[in-house]
């Protein structure tokens, strides 16, 4: 228990330092490219935090979350473009529309488990995209909707940056708030064993639908903000399945079913993908292979760190500390500690690789 607390404390400290850095960063001047990268990263983290509720905590592998992103985006798009609403209230509407939709489809779909649930949600997302593209009188169909620009540009950059950062904090707070309550316990119980959860008096249907609706709310508000931020939305763009998968990858990369997981995973994901596209290592332009690299990244993460990097780092550190404590006297230094840590990491990675082999 004490060990777990200490690790939690470390993660919280790292998180607060990170938050401070991101909050102060614009004061030191950011390029337009940096603004765009970081704002997109925050929005990705919010969609990841959303997926984490249904997929990470409740254990239902939802693959159609992009439907909520698209609905949020279209709620904002339609309200601003057709009805002249101001932006901020449309975020709430976008989140609520997505949550309502999730509750509606959740009632039948959440009765399914495993593969069936995954593909049913994927199917719902595809169908939603097609309906939005088809419903031209309301959505302008495949042509999409253009939204007004927020001006001047520096205001827009800072506005969206801090708005998206604020949403990340909101997502983390919401997760933290729920998982220490009865609802949170019911999700974790459902993930472990749904029949046992029912038998203890948990109305699993209600718990799952709430989880799904909250997931949709977070993903939906991210979509809303994206619509105004990007100032153009079209079905092919906002309902792209890649958005769901990036969110899932961010969660798995960081650690599913933890508060810090989606954040750490989202940051790492964005760092790696941005770096790979723009660094041109050895003079090779990797831009055209960026999806390939993303795929390789997914494959490596799945095989080597199925429990996420936070788990990998904390386990390595614990192991290194143990080895370190065993070594008597002289040899102790930061350098040997890091070396022990690296050895432990290698060992864990090798174990992970063999873990699910037949």
């Amino acid at each position: 228990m004490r060990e777990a607390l200490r690790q939690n404390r470390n993660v919280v400290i790292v998180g607060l330092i990170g938050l401070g850095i991101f909050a102060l960063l614009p004061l030191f001047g950011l390029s337009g490219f940096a603004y765009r990268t970081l704002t997109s990263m925050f929005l990705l983290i919010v969609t990841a935090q959303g997926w984490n509720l249904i997929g990470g905590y409740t254990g239902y592998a939802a693959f159609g979350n992009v439907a909520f992103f698209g609905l949020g985006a279209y709620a904002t798009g339609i309200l601003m473009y057709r009805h002249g609403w101001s932006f901020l209230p449309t975020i709430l509407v976008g989140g609520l529309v997505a949550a309502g939709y999730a509750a509606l489809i959740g009632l039948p779909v959440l009765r399914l488990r495993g593969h069936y649930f995954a593909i049913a949600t994927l199917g719902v997302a595809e169908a939603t995209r097609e309906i939005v593209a088809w419903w031209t009188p309301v959505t302008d169909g495949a042509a999409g909707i253009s939204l007004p620009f927020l001006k001047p540009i520096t205001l827009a950059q800072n506005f969206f940056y801090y708005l998206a950062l604020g949403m990340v904090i909101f997502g983390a707070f919401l997760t933290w708030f729920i998982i220490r309550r009865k609802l949170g316990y019911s999700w974790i119980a459902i993930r472990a064993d749904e029949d046992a959860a029912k038998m203890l008096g948990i109305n699993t249907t209600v718990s799952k639908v709430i989880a799904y609706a909250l997931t949709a709310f977070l993903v939906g508000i991210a979509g809303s903000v994206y619509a105004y931020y990007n100032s153009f939305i079209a079905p092919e763009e906002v309902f792209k399945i890649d958005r769901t998968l990036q969110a899932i990858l961010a969660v798995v990369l960081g650690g599913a079913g933890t508060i810090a997981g989606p954040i750490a995973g989202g940051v790492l994901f964005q760092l790696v993908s941005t770096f790979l596209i723009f660094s041109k290592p050895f003079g090779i332009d990797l831009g055209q292979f960026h999806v390939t690299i993303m795929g390789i990244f997914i494959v490596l993460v799945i095989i080597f760190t199925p429990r996420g990097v936070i788990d990998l780092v904390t386990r390595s550190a614990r192991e290194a500390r143990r080895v370190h404590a065993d070594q008597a006297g002289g040899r102790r230094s930061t350098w040997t500690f890091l070396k022990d840590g690296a050895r432990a990491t290698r060992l864990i990675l090798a174990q992970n690789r063999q873990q699910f082999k037949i």
Partner: protein
Amino acid sequence: MSGILIGQSAINVLLLSGVLTIAALGFSIVWGVMNIINLVHGAAIMLGAYVTFIAFTFAGIDPFLTIPISMVLLFGLGYLIQRNIINYVMRAPMLTTFLLTFGLEIIIINLAQFFFKSDLRAITTGYSGSSLTLYADPAANSSIEVPYIKLGALIVALLLTLLTHLLMSRTRLGRAIRSTGMDKDAAQLTGARISTIYALTFAISAGLAGAAGSLIAMTQSFQPGFGGTYTLYAFVIVVLGGLGSVPAVFLGALAFSLITVLTGLWQPGLTQAAAFALLVIMLVVRPSGIAGKAFYQ
């Protein structure tokens, strides 16, 4: 609706279902035997299409003769992928295999975009335009037509379906695959090497996907991204028909084609939405599919 329209629609349903059966067959076998939703499947179909395209365009081989080439090449690729990658996650939770196969799919598609470019490709043979007229009504100036190339594709598809059915039900390999799928621990006791069986199962599935790709290349234009749609179709077909037998896949493909053609007549923009709506209803109401429970007989 006129009689001719009904007749032509019925023919279209039949023609479509042949190709879709082959596209979904391998997917169904891997799912049933290995309990993996194989998202690489669509990428394998896409590669099959490009094998046919390249063999036809650069070597002048008749597209029908390229089918065995596609099948052999993809059989080999499937074997390698299972042995070297998928094998590491055979006992992992469902989300893991799902994401892993997705990662592989986007790698293959992205590389294909690099090598084959994103241009829309099509194959035009000497007999591409001609068709068999089943019935003609000169007064209305309309007729029921069966394009020869689609007819050929249907025949090949039915033949391959039959062969797969025989492979699974009559051969030693088929029996080993089926018993592995039903209970891998028990199958291990009988001396079957599980990892080899899995690799072969995956290879057969990829080979069938290659054939499906070749057939699709003959009947429609395509580009590297088209395979993903077929993965989703395959899923819907397997759910509609029921997991676990070759005839069930055919039934599922027939039902799926019927929905697609009918929705296409009414609202061409909503064919996928209709298919997925049906999928969800089917899953909730009758999860075992039209044909009910079976296991690859």
